């Protein structure tokens, strides 16, 4: 059955500020889901705390709005218990890379088949514009009384170090491209990380929609804006890492990865940066020990008969402890 965009929309009033990048991300998630052919009830979306945390309430799928920074472990537990669920986690840059940074690394190391969409606007919006972990050193957005004294963390570099196996970056106001990235991320087997650059029209007065669009730097000849955001794919960048590749080829790709993810300011690449097919998913690792794991999931396990008697047979375990 084909799904429509409306199948993934709730009636809940969306209360983000006008012009917020969240709208583009929400639409992209809903459109990506509609195109995936997975029933809404097989889909569970988890969110953290902050403006982005409300996303779950606007998507018609099981929606779990969790705690600040903890979206990934909640999502991990659900996916582990029912590996047949489609699990997407969403959250802000402060949520995921500040208070939740430990979980960001833990999830990457596991490589469970989930997709994490990070809404990156450089500020803590809902608490009125404090610097987030991604705001660059020396930037003074309007909620700050002085320039940011911390260097901003590079989410994609951190994701590489943590072990995510699909890394991409999108832009909130390039919806068609973002839909593709989310869809690719969901279809990827393993942990996918998608950083989405988004303006915060209320508190980030530096990295605005106009700034991303390059309105401040018109082409001297044509007078047209020269957008900062450009497509990685247009440069011929190949993100695929396969087991067949030589060490040299691997190093070449990782070198490109570092170079491209380090670009910021005048040119900001978006697209798929890495697809790593050289390692197993967490589900595969579990299945090696428990071959029936994905067929008889922990969540769906029948634990008692109709009278409530446990289905477990303790006798082999008790035999191990026997002393008579």
């Amino acid at each position, binding site marked *: 059955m084909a799904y429509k965009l409306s199948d993934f929309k709730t009636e809940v009033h969306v209360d983000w500020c006008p012009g917020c990048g969240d709208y583009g991300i929400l639409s992209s998630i809903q459109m990506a889901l509609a195109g995936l052919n997975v029933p809404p009830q097989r889909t569970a979306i988890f969110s953290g705390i902050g403006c982005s945390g409300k996303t779950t309430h606007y998507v018609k799928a099981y929606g779990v709005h969790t705690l600040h920074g903890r979206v990934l472990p909640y999502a991990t537990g*659900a996916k582990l*218990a029912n590996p047949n669920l489609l699990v997407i986690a969403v959250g802000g840059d402060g949520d995921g890379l500040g208070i939740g940074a430990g979980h960001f690394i*833990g999830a990457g190391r596991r490589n469970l088949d989930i997709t994490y969409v990070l809404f990156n606007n450089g500020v803590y919006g809902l608490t009125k514009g404090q610097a987030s972990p991604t705001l660059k050193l020396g930037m003074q957005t309007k909620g700050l009384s002085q320039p940011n004294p911390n260097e901003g963390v590079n989410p994609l570099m951190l994701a590489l170090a943590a072990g995510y196996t699909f890394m991409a970056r999108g832009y909130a106001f390039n919806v068609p491209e973002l839909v593709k990235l989310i869809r690719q991320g969901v279809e990827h087997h393993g942990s996918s990380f998608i950083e989405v650059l988004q303006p915060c029209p209320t508190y980030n007065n530096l990295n605005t929609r106009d700034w991303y669009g390059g309105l401040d730097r018109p082409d001297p000849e044509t007078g047209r804006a020269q957008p900062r955001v450009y497509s990685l794919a247009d440069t011929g960048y190949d993100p695929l890492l396969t087991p067949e590749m030589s060490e040299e080829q691997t190093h070449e790709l990782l070198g490109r990865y570092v170079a491209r993810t380090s670009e910021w300011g005048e040119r900001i690449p978006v697209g798929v940066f890495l697809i790593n097919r050289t390692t197993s998913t967490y589900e595969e690792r579990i299945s090696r020990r428990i071959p029936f794991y994905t067929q008889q999931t922990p969540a769906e396990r029948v634990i008692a008969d109709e009278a*409530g008697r*446990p289905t477990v047979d303790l006798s082999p375990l008790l035999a191990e402890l026997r002393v008579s």
Partner: protein
Amino acid sequence: MPAEQSRLTWLIGGAQGSGVDSAANIFARACAFGGLQVYAQREYYSNIMGKHSYYQVAVADRALGAPRDQADLLVSFDAETVFLHARQVCASGGLIYDPKLAETPLERAAAMEERARTSLAHYLVDEQGLDETLGSMIQAAQARGVHCFPIPYRELLQKLADETGTALSSLKRVINLLAVAASCALLQYPLEPLLRALAAVFAGKAKVIKLNSRACELTYQYVADSFAGEKLARHLEPVETDQLRIYLTGTEAVALGKIAAGCSLQAYYPISPATDESSYLDAHALVPLKSPPGEPAKQAALIVLQTEDEIAAITAATGAALAGARAATSTSGPGFCLMTEALGWAGINEVPLVISLYQRGGPSTGLPTRTEQGDLRFVLHAGHGEFPRLVLASGDLSECFHDAIRVFNWAERYQTPVIHLLDKALSSAGQTLPPFELEGVRLDRGLRAYEASEGEYRRFAWSESGISPRTVLGQAGGMFWNTGDEHDETGHITEDPLVRDQMMEKRARKLQTAAQEIPEAEKFNLFGDPDAETMIVSWGSPKGAILEALEVLKAEGHSLSFLQVRLLWPLPARALEALLRRAKRRIAVENNYSGQLAGLIREQTGIKIEQLIVKYNGRPILSDELSEALKALLATKPGDSSSQKVVLTHGI
């Protein structure tokens, strides 16, 4: 065994990493294979190697449930053990030591606490007029009537090396076994059950079994040749029994309960003393299922997830519970501190979640490997805001098992977090028990909406009991939303004052429902003489020591009752009040500083429990120190202000 000798307390000590645990494990099993019953308690430092640890194994022809202060036989192969424990040996008891260490001065016991060293120096020099050597400790013990047996471990090992052609250096690990064998020989215990214990512990390692068995035989021979004349007053005899028994620890009992309950995901972060439970579960991730005879054995999955921290542990378990799994986490105080925000999330979202909390000495890192009942007040209030939770405390290993099942039933029935309150003393207790029976066990999955229809289902629908039929992630027709914000019936955020009231009241009603539904027998136990003037009130692990003290006091003509509170929240205040009012004198016994249960009872019933016996030195309450303290209290008037709080201080 003659009745007056029906309990033997065997104590082995040594540096951590030198095989104390495995020696005690072998001894306990050797006793069990001889039909005897065992209660063992392990004490150890937060340290990998070198600090002093010891294991007490109490043996009898009947069930035992608590450690004691006094030892009948002390088994040592290092100096520190003799220094620290010799004074615990009763006058007619025995002490096994390495004669090579006789000249070892106190200062050479490098890992010893300074306070203990100073106190021992005072004892040896000032009180006994001796020098500060191990030989003096032996001499002082002998002067008290203790039989001391030098066992030349090195010579025995050399003999074993020569006989078996093994390098002496590779036999160091056998010393602990020589100590066990020597103790068994001195207790005139037959070799056969000891050899059976070896075969069980080293199953599948034929060479190790052969070598160790030979080591035991040599030691038995040595003891027979060397100490023919000197006899221990106590001896150990196997007894005939046709009862099936298992030997297990508290963490294993909880783990088995979780397995029986159908727990299919446990998320944890390593922490003493809770980790052993998760390790056991992880080693049994393929759970055997009942299958009809003749059919291939079926199995189910139990996923054990080691997370990056305790916050991830509780939140992952919550995610799994939302997906429909029976899910749990297991931790200790510091870990539970980190979990509290997520506890509230599970509360407001009505998630069935089980938390096994093994209390240890607090606050902060406190005493990582020592026991305490310091977290009762904490678990009652953990998390900001108000939400329902149930708290159940187990008092022994059998309760550990059955309560571990019960808490899952409650979590799903009342759709809220349930805290299973345990402690280090329970976790590291080893005990022989009849194999657990699942005969009367029933699993209750609570109200579920299996046939929910899309568009109509409301996860948090109003209900009289406060409980709404639940769906799980992925279920067709049961879509819901969760949020840590206050929510409406569908689960979407609301700040509406009326809806807020309704939701607070709905959640609170579940606790009233639980209080009404849970049978009294699961809320508390009353032991002893129900009409006794004096009532002991306690909870959790002191149960064993209290029951033993009750027996001792009864034999001396004191009749007491013992009220063991199991359901700590919601506290069965009315029933407790009625019972408490029947007693003229009430004494609370708790392994904490302030008497937290006594305080809770006063808050909930208005009854002041006048006398407290507490202990907060990190060691479990010992049955003999408790009976002495009770006797002293009973000799005072109930209102005597000097006896309102008695602090127990024993334990090394």
